[in-house]
């Protein structure tokens, strides 16, 4: 019990992201309403973004913005700043997430206009008829 608890406490941020991912994944698959599925997808992608950003964290690390001339004179000490590469990668992932949400919402409007409902089982009934 002791080592398990200390494992969880030491890496609590990763456990939180895993829980978030699973909530999003369940919503994507288990819910019937199409908007709830879309929200689940957003939660899933946001959890992955948070996971990546937390990779770069360092104990006692500061914001990775340095003064240009000080950096050109002394260089940057990598142990004092948080790793900025995952932040930049996740900017791209955020753009992807926004685009997919935009396209999905536009498609949802078309579905609503055609079937007048957003519940998946009602739509499948209307198609099957």
């Amino acid at each position, binding site marked *: 019990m002791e080592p398990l608890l200390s494992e969880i406490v030491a890496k609590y941020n990763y456990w939180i992201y895993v829980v978030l991912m699973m909530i999003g994944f369940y919503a994507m698959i288990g819910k019937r309403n199409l908007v709830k599925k879309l929200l689940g997808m957003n939660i*899933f992608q946001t959890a992955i973004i948070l*996971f990546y950003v937390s990779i770069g964290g360092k104990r006692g690390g500061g914001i990775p913005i340095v003064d240009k001339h000080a950096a050109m004179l002394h260089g940057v000490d990598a142990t004092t700043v948080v790793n900025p590469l*995952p932040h930049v990668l996740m900017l791209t992932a955020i753009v992807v997430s926004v685009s997919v949400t935009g*396209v*999905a919402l536009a498609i949802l409007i*078309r579905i609503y206009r*055609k079937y007048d409902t957003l519940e998946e089982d009602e739509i499948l009934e209307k198609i099957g008829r």
Partner: protein
Amino acid sequence: MNTPNLHLYVLAAPLLTAFAVNLLGRVSRTWIGPLVLGALTFSAGGALMTLLHVLREGAFRYTIGNWQPPLGIELVVDPLSALMLLLVSAVALLATSSALKSVAHELPGREHLFFTLYMILIAGLLGLVLTGDAFNLYVLLEITAITTYGLIAMGSGRAALSSFNYIIMGSIGACFYLLGVGYLYILTGTLNMADIAQILPGLDAPAAIATAFAFLMVGLWVKMGLFPLHVWLPNAYSQAPTGAGAMIAPLMTKVTIYLMIRVMFSIFSPDYTFLAHAGIQAGIVWAASLAIMCASGLALAQRNLRRMLTYILVAEVAYMVGGVWLANGTGITGAILHIVSDAMMTLCLFLAAAAIIYRTGSLEFDRLNGLYRRMPVTMAAFTVGAFSMIGVPPTCGFFSKWYLILGAVRAGHPEFVTALLISSLINAVLFFRIIELAYFQPASDLSRSEPQQAGEAPLLMLSPLLLSAVALVAIGLGSGPLIENIIRLAMPPGFAP
């Protein structure tokens, strides 16, 4: 023009044309056709020259923006990616010339929007086959996916719902891939594929590496539609507008299989992929065999030509995944040859379906009676495509299946051989059913009483169909030189055809 930049001109031409089409297409519709066809012809020609250059001088790496790897984004142009580049641009050119007509027929007034998405999709596919950086792969994968979502949703009927289901499943696949890349980044600190391949063998974290591999593989399997992760594929590809379906169906799954080959051999070494975890390799071949049988069985139950073709596509994906995981040179050769031949076969069959739907408006089996009388050339090309799917020499389908079966026999996987043979028989049943309806049944009263447009599809739709049918036979007859000169160089180190 600088020859080392040629492969990027091949990529840039569709990208620029997309936005030029969006701007100029609003002004007048007649600009779209020449622009699109001109750009894709340039791309195809450039891809051919790149392939010849690589075969003469060897593979090379190209860094974007002159930032040195492993920090910069690197492109890898070796025989395999040059072959895929030529395949993607040639198939895109043939499919586009048919799409021009069917889009004008199905989506009047919105062609400039359709072709913007279409050209961005082609640019994304061309980028996917060139990239050598793991995160760049994710970005391009999502570019192709988002444009595909938009293109599919432009169809009629159930297209919007099918596209939404594809969005959910496709995002799951891409997010799993992103998680895998994240684990690799934590382990190695770099995103460049060659660099990761260098650092990974020296690490001591077997569970983490295995998790990264599992996430990457499952993400790509969802994206390519391997049974049982394929549930989005039949609806999405059969409800798409005809012009989009003819390009998406041959290309997207094949490029994803190419990506799987890259991940398996360029990021993780063949030793790790096949030997590190006992039983995985055999298990996946078993799963692929099961997938082939189930997908072929599902194809038997379909009543609509395009839906049947999409289920056959799912089975073909399983051929290639099983072929690569056979872990010997013959199997991998068969898989790579099958990528080329299956793209051509699927293109030929989907173009034939597009021509049929352009003239008769329906692809249900009971409306296909006596089609031979009205569209003889289309049905001839369809027959060539059908023979290639079944595996009749001298079409290319026979040679790629031959290599796959030979590889399975050498690797000692009789279940894969059984699955391939039974699937060929089921394909024969499926296609001969249609050939019998089209050639030997008289046109039924149902279709005679409605006003019909007699005759073949227009030349713009017919010529790519004939070209792809001829290419099937040409690739088949030339598969020996193809394997000797190109595929042998494209194999991962340590394997021989």
